[in-house]
């Protein structure tokens, strides 16, 4: 158990630990520039090493939001970043619980009247699941959302295969074998993170349940691609379901490197992505 230290404040915001399910999570509240729009955004980070690669761009997006009058809370899920806990003990459910706690912190500390959720990659899927439980959230922004969770886990497993190649010069355990191990409740190592087996079963369940809430709110989806292309089938289906259930959805595409992975170039921010996203948020508040 880690004891919660003091809150650290400066003119840009405050950094602190807050409780979620008995664990202390690290949070960073970015203050809104005056006048505040009273519309707070809760950032739902991506998964494992993607979170680290994407961090600076999301940090600068948060600063951009704050500069336009939106308070933002960024936080580390249990077992991630500076938060308490061990990665192996986490699950998709624990992350959704953490998002709900962060929403409560935003309401308590952010002086807001409205809440929106922002998510990148798996964080986008988690934001959608949190929406199903926190119906008072009024908008959601999804960047490069992982809309098929088991496919996303398959992608993650590639890194395990790469490590096997480095260590053994061949693949000893195929992807299917790794999946079987996860189904049996074992952990699988991805870039140094021990993925708990429960993630796979949870991913299958989320795929069955679907990610679109019963009463969808206003949403903005940004498809981030290396080269322009038609929207993928998962995204098209998602858009149809959202509209069928009466929700407003804007889907846009931007050409940009996948900054949540290791790249040849360093990007401290993503101006076009920020521009479109902040414009959507501003339209919400008039």
């Amino acid at each position: 158990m880690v004891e919660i230290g003091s809150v650290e404040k400066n003119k840009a915001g405050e950094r602190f630990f807050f409780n979620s399910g008995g664990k202390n999570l690290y949070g960073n509240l970015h203050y809104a520039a005056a006048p505040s729009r009273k519309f707070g955004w809760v950032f739902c980070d991506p998964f494992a090493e993607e979170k680290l690669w994407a961090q600076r761009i999301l940090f600068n997006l948060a600063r951009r939001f704050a500069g336009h009058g939106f308070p933002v809370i960024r936080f580390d899920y249990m077992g991630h970043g500076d938060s308490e806990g061990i990665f192996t003990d986490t699950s998709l459910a624990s992350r959704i619980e953490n998002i709900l706690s962060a929403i409560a912190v935003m309401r308590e500390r952010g002086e807001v009247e409205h809440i929106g959720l922002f998510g990148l990659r798996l964080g986008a899927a988690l934001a959608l699941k949190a929406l199903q439980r926190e119906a008072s959230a009024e908008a959601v922004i999804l960047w490069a959302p992982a809309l098929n969770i088991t496919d996303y886990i398959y992608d993650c497993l590639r890194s395990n295969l790469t490590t096997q190649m480095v260590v053994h010069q061949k693949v000893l355990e195929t992807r299917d074998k790794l999946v079987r191990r996860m189904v049996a409740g074992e952990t699988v190592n991805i870039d140094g993170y021990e993925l708990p087996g429960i993630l796979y079963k949870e991913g299958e369940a989320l795929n069955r349940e679907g990610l679109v809430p019963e009463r969808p709110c206003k949403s903005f989806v940004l498809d981030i691609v290396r080269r322009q292309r038609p929207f993928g089938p998962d995204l098209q289906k998602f858009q149809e379901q959202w509209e069928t259930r009466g929700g407003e959805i804007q889907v846009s595409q931007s050409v940009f490197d996948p900054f949540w992975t290791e790249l040849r170039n360093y990007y401290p921010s993503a101006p076009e992505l920020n521009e479109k996203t902040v414009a959507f948020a501003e339209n919400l508040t008039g």
Partner: protein
Amino acid sequence: MITEMPVSFTNGNGQILTGILHVPGEGPGRHTGISILNPGIKNRVAPNRLNVKLARKLCSLGYPILRFDPEGVGESGGELPRTSVQNIWGIIQQGHFIGDILASNRFFRNKTGIQQILLAGICGGAISALLASEQDDNISGLILIDVPVFLEGERDYAATIVPGRYADMVFMQYAYKFFILSAWRRFLTLQTDYRALARAFWVKLGGTGLASKTPAKSGDKKISGLPFNEKFIPAYQKFVDGQGKVLFVLAENDASTAYFENLFAKDFLSEENKAGCERLKINNANHIYALKEWQKQLMNGVCDWVTTHFSG
């Protein structure tokens, strides 16, 4: 019980740098603090939370720990230039973060009352630690994990060509692979490091005559213009001459290990002149110590070294 708290301080450029201070609870009351530096462009958490795990383990042994983001990284103010990652590694390897480390050391001492500091870091954090040690006499020990002895960056291609000894090794490796089917498959499916291959052949075939020799002894200046980081040896020599202690941790499968062993350790860590230095090599490990057993060896090795040499 350990307390972890967000902290911030200002660097010489007036930027606010943010970090986490780990304060041990009841215990021996150490006078030594350990600052664990961020690796290159990644933040204070480090790949797969290595810095967090190491900080919590060392703090449980009674050592105050500081982890912070330098300017332009993580949650700190300022920005790194928008350029290639290699170029940023290059400026870090030349000491870009030294000023921030010195500022963090002052903050760490003032905040906790510690009398001596150990600097630890992986990769970019390791070279930053070594270079910063030249400018702060209160640094008593260095934990350098996969420290790069070379300079990266997309400057003049000739200036980044691999040194002769390493080129020999790479050349032999590829010559051997000539007979291996899977190597050809990798070559044809774009999985080969063509750049390293081209450089090795370039040097072997005579290139521009820039195939280098490793500095033969301390103070040898014949290394400028080559990828060997010319700041490395003076900083190292000054530190060990001042009775500083160094732990080098090496991942066997990390590319920097071959450079380290061929360009530095062979001449500078021989039996007769390795006073104050220890080397821990972790078999099979990759650059991020992905597997649990590698992480365990890393953590245990570092903790044993720290408690042996800095018990106060």
